[in-house]
């Protein structure tokens, strides 16, 4: 019998077709995820204006939102209390998420978080020195001290790890950063143990909180955050190449030393600004990149925006929960983040196959 050509449908798909099918699914997943995250962000935003120690409803909040200069109770609550902290939570969360994704990309280490560059330790030491020596005690005044402390620490770490090379070796970055962080934390603890009033003021700042911060704090750090975010997003193609290894990246034309320098600069701006505004918040930078990578895969052009969005949602949600759970008091963001985010993170770690760097 003469073999007939099989009908078109039953021909196995060509390898190219199979690959593009998988890629198509990935793209669709990423786009869908992005839309979902944006919707989630809007919902969380709405919840942040509505929920709080004083119960309000959406109907009361919406008119208040459209008239910023009204003076009735609801408007005051919305504009003086909830608007600053919502905006701050969004900006700090996005900054920390971006910084976390950046540092994990540069150090190729899934356990790295922005604090590894000594940023939160430097900020804490600067603040405690300000409290101890200068007697400063208002959050708005901590901002510049914290920024200065983070910058100095990051410069030392980057400098120590790039002596001898042109580009900062990831392993050196991690070790130098951890060494300096431990040293600075030890100095901070020594001062707080020696002087009880310093401990008293420091322990509240060190918890990490977006409440009780005037909007001036946000305006002060916003330029740094914007510049940092811009540099971060612009460097994503170079980071994709760096992920292949420094030699391959160099042969692809990426200026490795410059990319690392810009990356560390962006991380310092983002994480330093976030820490200066809200105090040291530790969980976001470490965990959010893992969560984002589970959806986007290792492509930095998608990973960074996702990390920023997820970070913003996470910090805002933690702030809302902190307001609601302990009525009439409040739990700070720094405390709630890990208590709420960690179980979710552990659940994810158990369920999905981990996407390694």
């Amino acid at each position, binding site marked *: 019998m003469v073999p007939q050509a099989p009908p078109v449908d039953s021909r196995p798909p060509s390898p190219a077709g199979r690959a593009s099918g998988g890629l198509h699914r990935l793209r669709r997943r990423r786009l869908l995820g992005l839309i979902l995250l944006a919707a989630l962000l809007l919902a969380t935003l709405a919840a942040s204006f509505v929920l709080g120690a004083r119960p309000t409803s959406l109907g009361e909040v919406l008119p208040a939102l459209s008239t910023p200069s009204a003076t009735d109770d609801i408007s005051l609550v919305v504009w003086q209390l909830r608007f600053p902290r919502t905006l701050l939570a969004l900006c700090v969360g996005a900054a920390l998420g971006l910084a976390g994704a950046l540092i994990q990309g540069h150090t190729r280490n899934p356990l790295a978080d922005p604090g590894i560059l000594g940023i939160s330790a430097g900020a804490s030491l600067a603040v405690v020195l300000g409290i101890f020596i200068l007697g400063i005690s208002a959050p708005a005044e901590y901002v510049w001290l914290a920024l200065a402390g983070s910058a100095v620490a990051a410069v030392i770490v980057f400098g120590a790890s*790039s002596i*001898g090379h042109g580009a900062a070796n990831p392993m050196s970055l991690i070790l130098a950063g*951890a060494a300096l962080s431990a040293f600075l934390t030890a100095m901070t603890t*020594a001062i707080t143990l*020696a002087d009880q009033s310093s401990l008293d003021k420091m322990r509240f700042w060190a918890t990490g909180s977006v409440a009780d911060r005037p909007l001036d704090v946000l305006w002060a750090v916003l330029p740094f955050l914007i510049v940092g975010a811009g540099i971060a997003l612009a460097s994503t193609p170079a980071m994709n190449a760096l992920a292949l290894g420094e030699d391959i990246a160099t042969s692809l034309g990426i200026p490795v030393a410059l990319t690392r320098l810009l990356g560390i600069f962006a991380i310092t701006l983002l994480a330093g600004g976030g820490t200066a505004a809200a105090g040291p918040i530790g969980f976001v930078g470490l*965990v959010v990149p893992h969560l984002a990578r589970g959806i986007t895969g290792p492509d930095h052009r998608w990973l960074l925006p996702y990390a920023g969005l997820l970070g913003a949602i996470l910090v805002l949600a933690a702030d809302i929960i902190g307001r609601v759970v302990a009525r009439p008091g409040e739990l700070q963001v720094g405390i709630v983040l*890990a*208590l709420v985010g*960690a179980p979710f993170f552990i659940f994810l770690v158990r369920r999905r196959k981990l996407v390694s760097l």
Partner: protein
Amino acid sequence: MSTPTLDRNDSGTNAPTTATGGTAVDRQIRALRWGRLSAVLRPRHLIAALALLVAAALAFAINIGQGDYPLSIPQVFEVLFGGGNRLERLVVLEWRMGRTMVGLVVGLALGLAGALTQSVSRNPLASPDILGISQGASAAVVTVLVMGTSVAGLTVPAALLGGGTAAIALVGGLITAAVIYLLAWRRGIDPFRLVLVGIGINAMLTSVITFMIVRADINTAAQAKVWLTGSLAGQGWPQFWPVLICLAVAVIALALVSYDLQATQLGDDAARALGVRLRVSQGVMLLIAVGLTAITVSAAGPIGFVAFVAPQLALRLCRTATPPLIGSALTGAALLLLSDWVARVVLPWELPVGIVTAAIGGPFLLHLVIQTNRKASA
């Protein structure tokens, strides 16, 4: 066959060869064979380990010798070996020996635990500090300190309270370790997943501790802060024996399992191909690390940073590819004893030793990193 022999390479010539068969100008691979046992002779490693042993012994002697009634190092050794006059024996053996011995075994245990964790995870950031065990112990102690002995309806049993913070810390640490293990278990233990779960639990417990510290009145908060930094003050023989027993058990267990460590460094698949029962040996090593960490936290509080920095220092001093076990233990001991001496004697007011270990160990590690970078580019 009964005397150990020093073999040159299989090529039979005097020309040194590298593992790939090319020729190296300076390095020869020498093997020490004794019957069926064999080991590679690494002179640099041996010399470094001996130097670390001497350093640890000197740190021990300095720590014992210095204080209100200072003794010189030769005097200390004289007393230790049976001589010395009555006053010296009183000072060394009655007053100071307990605390210094605790410092010695805690340093050894921390260095060893750090080396094991970092080797199994192949990641220098995966020290036992961040795995949550110290945090579990800390959270238990701080909660009891701040909220008293009935917490949310659960009353801490009197037997536990009798042991003081040590018993509470131990129980807290072991419960945390068990929780981390159970959460990370999914048809076996993958070190990466274990470390990530440990980080999650660590973050939660840090939140709890921060919450307690913020809620407490300032005196309790200061008290909690002091315990949280880790200190050898007031430690003596009662704390020494549990740590020593744990260390002895660990060493015996490691003697059986540590030779797998070299193969594990090659990666999971290569190790399995070489016949290593990967999950079993990794599990045993992590269990040892957990046990050592829990017992040290219960003895001296969470002395941070030693378990992270000692293996990294030892790795660079011994020029090995992975943290050497004995070297890390000795480095940990030397670091802790020196820091305790500095904290107790050199500083104008006594600071917890956990601060000094970071203050000394941090810059030293920084210096070593810079030195390594400079050499690599030369």
